[in-house]
């Protein structure tokens, strides 16, 4: 019966309508969050506190992953490039792949599973234990007091984390390529510098990570705020945050990359 219902045309239609409704609700939610950001501006301490939870606590995973991704790129890149005798381009390969793609994308994926899921769980739990209702009963808007500072903290920390990820990855590539394998250090850096453009590559990477930060934080906060106030509801919302964020990051990455290459 349940399977039949799920597969029926009516079921699909209902699901589609439901998704559109949810999207509309999510849009209204983010608009309200942006509109009630005044409190965060007046009291930067609220944002600083959330920067600690979203940014500082994500540092370890970001830095370690960045280092490893860079080291793997160093090995793989060297292996591929040496067949064409152009090992000296290793720096270019590592830097461009990190700055343009892997930095923003992998950092955002890690951010979604580390900070995003934590945000969803925290807000969902605050809802389930009536903390948000209590706040509202005390004439304090939870969107302004709880959601908006987290939103800004997420949007601020994402580009910083992505930059650290890329820098760490390039260092990892340098470790493997130059220190371990023995690619010429001079050509590693100089080729990188002549090939990586500040505006085209680095700034576009930063723009990507800001967009990803916006998307991940939005999804995480909305899932938490919209979670059914039960234990199952919160755990389901946390899972949904990671899944939806990851898909959103990859889809947005495709759109942004297409847009940026067209803009050249």
């Amino acid at each position, binding site marked *: 019966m349940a399977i039949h219902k799920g597969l029926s045309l009516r079921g699909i239609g209902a699901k589609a309508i439901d998704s559109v409704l949810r999207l509309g609700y999510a849009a209204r939610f983010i608009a309200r969050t942006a509109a009630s950001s005044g409190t965060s501006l007046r009291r930067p301490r609220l944002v*600083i*506190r959330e*920067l*600690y939870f979203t*940014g*500082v606590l994500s*540092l370890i995973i970001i830095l370690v992953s960045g280092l490893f991704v860079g080291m793997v790129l160093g090995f793989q890149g060297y292996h591929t490039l040496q067949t064409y005798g152009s090992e000296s381009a290793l720096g270019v390969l590592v*830097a461009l792949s990190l*700055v343009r793609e892997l930095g923003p994308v992998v950092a955002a994926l890690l951010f979604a599973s580390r900070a995003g899921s934590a945000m969803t769980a925290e807000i969902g739990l605050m809802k389930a234990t009536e903390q948000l209702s209590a706040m509202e009963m005390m004439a304090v808007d939870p969107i302004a007091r709880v959601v908006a500072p987290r939103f800004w903290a997420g949007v601020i*920390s994402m*580009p*910083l*984390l992505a*930059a*650290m990820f*890329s*820098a*760490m990855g*390039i260092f990892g590539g340098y470790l493997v390529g130059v220190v371990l394998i023995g690619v010429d250090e001079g050509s590693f*850096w100089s080729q*990188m*510098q*002549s090939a*990586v*453009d*500040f*505006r*085209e*590559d*680095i700034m576009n990477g*930063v723009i990507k990570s800001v967009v990803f930060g916006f998307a991940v934080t939005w999804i995480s906060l909305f899932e938490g705020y919209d979670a059914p106030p039960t234990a199952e509801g919160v755990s389901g919302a946390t899972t949904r945050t990671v899944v939806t964020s990851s898909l959103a990051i990859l889809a947005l990455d495709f759109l942004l990359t297409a847009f940026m290459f067209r803009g*050249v």
Partner: protein
Amino acid sequence: MQRSTLDLWVGLFVVGGIGALLVLAMKVGNMSGIGVSESYPLVAQFDNIGGLKPRAPVKSAGVVVGRVAAIQFDNEKFIARVTLNIDKHYTFPKDSSASILTSGLLGEQYIGLEGGGDTVNLNPGDRIRQTQSAVVLEKLIGQFLYSKAAEGGDKK
């Protein structure tokens, strides 16, 4: 968690993030290069620019001396009008020539400037008279085949 420790960590985090951005800009990107210094414009006209892009480097004797600022199409003469931004430190004689070259076999295209012997230098906004267009591979192959065919004809 004490307030001050929290602040310290957040401060370190922000400094680290901005530091990483700066490292990317300075050490990895070419921000420290030509982009920031002052420049003056020169104009060059080409029959065909091939795959030249804005912001492509302008090199003289292999040294980057400027960048391509803009590429326009002249609809009266049907040629490309390329504006170059040349670093203020470098000056070139009036009879210098510009050609569109390719770095490596399939690399990106750039403009090569070759200094002439004139005593008067190019002023900002001047046009470089002598230009050589990009080599278009199809034309090259076409020429090659044509000459081969001609050779064959001779042999007969």
